[in-house]
């Protein structure tokens, strides 16, 4: 099956109903309903750089006038004369000259003391908290970017966008882009090898056995499907991009960001990218004894700074710098007091960086307070990390306040003055129609959905399985303004996961259902 046939198979739309994207001022895809354009993002793109292992914030943005810093870190503190001075109190690690230049040019905002209440010091748990945007005491299994992307493309996965919604450079898929309705991204190291690898892969949407094992097979098919669907457009855009516009360091992270730069330059409209660099778990020997501005940690920071600065320069030369913002994050900072092995143990709040032509620059937040630590000896957070997510969603990606709140688990997080101008709203809650669950989920005997229309329009409500096969149509036709509900009878469905999708002239929305 080639990609066209494949997309055709996935297109579940019948004639007579024109579909737009839920809530977005882009409509009229009727001519090609299954290839949803990504124009709706206004070209705005978010690139995340994950520093895995827990970056030591105090040796990254150094409080070089704070005597407590030097007391608590006798052999690992960065000496005052070595820091790259930002202001009268704070300076960057000497490895970060490239980022210092970004800061000096107002293209980098430093947000101090970022964390969350009741910090968890497990790498795995705290990473998941950052990736999902959950509170410390709850487990979520949807990434925050995944939730954003399903708002942006409310028809997913019944309809899949023509271009990948998210791209992760690497090999093991991140929770960041996973959602209850499937993965929103593709994962690869290199567009050409990805394309070549996909050749020969077959996809289908036959029913799977009604067992737990069958659910795993569904997952495998979805991955196969996305590989086939996206490999050629990624390759095409990448091939079309001008290469070597600007030099990158030959580090792994440098190479990841180089590919991102080329994909964006080639016109790929994917709004979210994830890159990664590991090695920040510096329990031991994070600095060279006697030369604390050098060593493992300084090298890591240099790698990050050089790659990020090269990326910014690349985008500027391509004339795309105002479209893109890059943010670094790490699962936690490290203990204020050093341990006995010239390193630091797991801590809590730490600074992060937001880079792009659209940022205001400067430092947000207080200098880290070392005299008032939590009971564990860690820095208390000043900004919740979800304030920064909310800020990026609203002010960069143009997500309406109420939708942002919804993405963040129906919580309000005060946004921060990171960006020069707030973006115009792209992803808004839909005023034309609503479609919600109206009874139990998971359900056994029955459940129900309720929908309302502001005006008369074409509507189709149908049940699909997780591979997008249409199982039954609950309602189809032109319906007058008003509020209606539909019953979904349990006996018609074997236990498992289903999608109930409403597609109408004003957009579409998908609800995930579980039959027990």
């Amino acid at each position, binding site marked *: 099956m080639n990609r066209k046939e494949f997309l055709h198979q996935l297109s579940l739309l019948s004639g007579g109903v024109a579909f737009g994207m839920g809530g977005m001022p882009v409509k009229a895809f009727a001519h090609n309903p299954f290839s949803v354009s990504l124009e709706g993002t206004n070209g705005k793109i978010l690139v995340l750089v994950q520093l895995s292992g827990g970056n030591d914030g105090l040796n990254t943005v150094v409080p070089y006038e704070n005597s407590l810093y030097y007391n608590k870190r006798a052999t690992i503190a960065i000496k005052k004369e070595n820091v790259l001075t930002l202001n009268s109190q704070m300076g960057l690690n000497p490895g970060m000259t490239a980022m210092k230049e970004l800061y000096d040019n107002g293209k980098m905002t430093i947000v101090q003391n970022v964390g969350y209440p009741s910090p968890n*010091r*497990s790498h795995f748990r705290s990473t998941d908290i950052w990736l999902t945007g959950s509170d410390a005491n709850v487990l979520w299994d949807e990434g925050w970017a995944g939730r954003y992307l399903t708002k942006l493309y409310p028809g997913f996965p019944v309809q899949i966008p023509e271009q990948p919604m998210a791209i992760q450079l690497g*090999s093991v898929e991140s929770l960041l882009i996973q959602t209850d309705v499937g993965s929103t991204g593709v994962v690869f190291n290199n567009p050409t090898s990805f394309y070549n690898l996909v050749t020969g892969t077959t996809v289908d949407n036959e029913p799977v056995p009604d067992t737990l*094992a069958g659910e795993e097979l569904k997952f495998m098919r979805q991955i196969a499907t996305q590989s086939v669907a996206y490999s050629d457009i990624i390759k095409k855009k990448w091939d079309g991009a001008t290469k070597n516009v600007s030099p990158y360091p030959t580090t792994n992270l440098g190479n990841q960001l180089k590919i991102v730069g080329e994909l964006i330059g080639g016109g790929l409209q994917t709004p979210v990218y994830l890159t990664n660099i590991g090695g920040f778990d510096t329990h031991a020997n994070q600095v060279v004894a006697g030369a604390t501005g050098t060593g493992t940690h300084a090298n890591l920071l240099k790698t990050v700074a050089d790659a990020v600065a090269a990326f910014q320069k690349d985008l500027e030369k391509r004339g795309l710098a105002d479209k893109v913002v890059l943010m670094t994050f790490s699962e936690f900072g490290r203990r204020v007091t050093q341990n*006995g*092995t010239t390193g630091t143990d*797991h801590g809590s709040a730490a600074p992060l960086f937001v880079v792009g032509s659209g940022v205001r620059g400067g430092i947000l937040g207080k200098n880290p307070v070392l005299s008032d630590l939590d009971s564990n000896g860690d820095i208390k957070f000043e900004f919740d990390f979800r304030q920064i997510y909310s800020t990026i969603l609203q002010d960069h990606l143009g997500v309406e306040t109420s939708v942002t709140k919804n993405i963040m688990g129906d919580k309000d997080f005060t946004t921060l003055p990171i960006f020069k101008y707030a973006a115009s709203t792209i992803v808004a809650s839909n005023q034309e129609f609503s479609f919600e669950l109206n009874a139990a989920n998971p359900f056994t005997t029955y459940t129900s959905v309720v929908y309302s229309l502001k005006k008369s329009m074409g509507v189709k409500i149908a049940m699909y399985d997780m591979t997008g096969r249409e199982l039954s149509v609950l309602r189809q036709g032109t319906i007058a303004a008003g509020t209606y509900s539909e019953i979904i009878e349990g006996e018609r469905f074997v236990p498992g996961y289903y999608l109930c999708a409403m597609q109408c002239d004003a957009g579409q929305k998908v609800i995930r259902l579980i039959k027990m």
Partner: protein
Amino acid sequence: MYIQNDLFRRSAWGNFKQLTKDVTIDPAMLIYLDGRLSNGTTPNENYSREIMELFTLGVGNYTENDIKQAALAFTGWQVSGLNATFNQNRFANVNKTIFGKTGNYKYGDVVDIILEKPEAAEFVCRKLYKEFVFYKANETFVKQMADVFRKNNYEIRPVLKFMLTSDEFFNSQYKAAKIKNPMETTIGILKAFDLTTADVNTTSDWPYIYTQTQALQQLLFYPPDVQGWVGQRDWISSTTFVLRGSVSDYVVNAMGNTRATQFKLISNPVNYARTYKTSEDAIKLVDDMVNVFLQFPLSQTKKQTLVNTLLGSTILANWSTSTPGAENQVKALLKAIMRLPEFQFA
């Protein structure tokens, strides 16, 4: 790492308490989680945290203070050559309070105290369950396992026997539910073609397997982090899924290919097909091969597609492994079977 692997192999049927104590002062562990660098005055918490979080209790079943106190008890151990050595001067020779108990504990005492907690038996049994039954644990059954585990003083053999002979283990819900790890996938492909260890060339074949399993995210002795491989769905991304297909293609391409640089002892495709009694009946041959390679049943449509792949430009009535070009047709069939999502399951 060899020493640590040997410890795991020797202890697999032994006692989990003893294994946990042994691994605490295992040289590779002392290096990996910094125990050899830690000392009584300014301890390093790395091992202390991970033994509780990842090896015995799980997140939420200890406090930050338990970690700090246990870190003291783990001090004193260093690595000399390939051996762990105890240096009293580096040991925190003071009272420690861990999970409400106080004493001048050493590493073995801490392990005993940790494993007294009921969460420990469940945590370890949950891991066994996830490895052998299904990656999402049935908590009711895990509790039963934990019971058996505790009653047998953390002996591993009885709880394994309990699990592997239970109705739960044979529940059809879990049949074929396990996504093969990269080693199982690659070695499994070789075994499917009856290649034995002796048939696999150490200077050409093994390096290929090594680099491919690395690309598939499982480089033996180099887990991605202290947690180890998560397994199941984590093995699969858009890249690793298609890469698995390229590995099976590569091995099949070596069949009957005198110029192949790897797997020179793999059988000729026609000879391989003739190991099936049904080799001269295209439909039955596909049926039999599918049953060998896949755990999931295939629909008639899919089987027909495979039959068409085998036949290529010939027709059903004319199929024979003696027809010219049969070699390539068998190879096409084998590649197609192993490119199916169903092939990734065991």
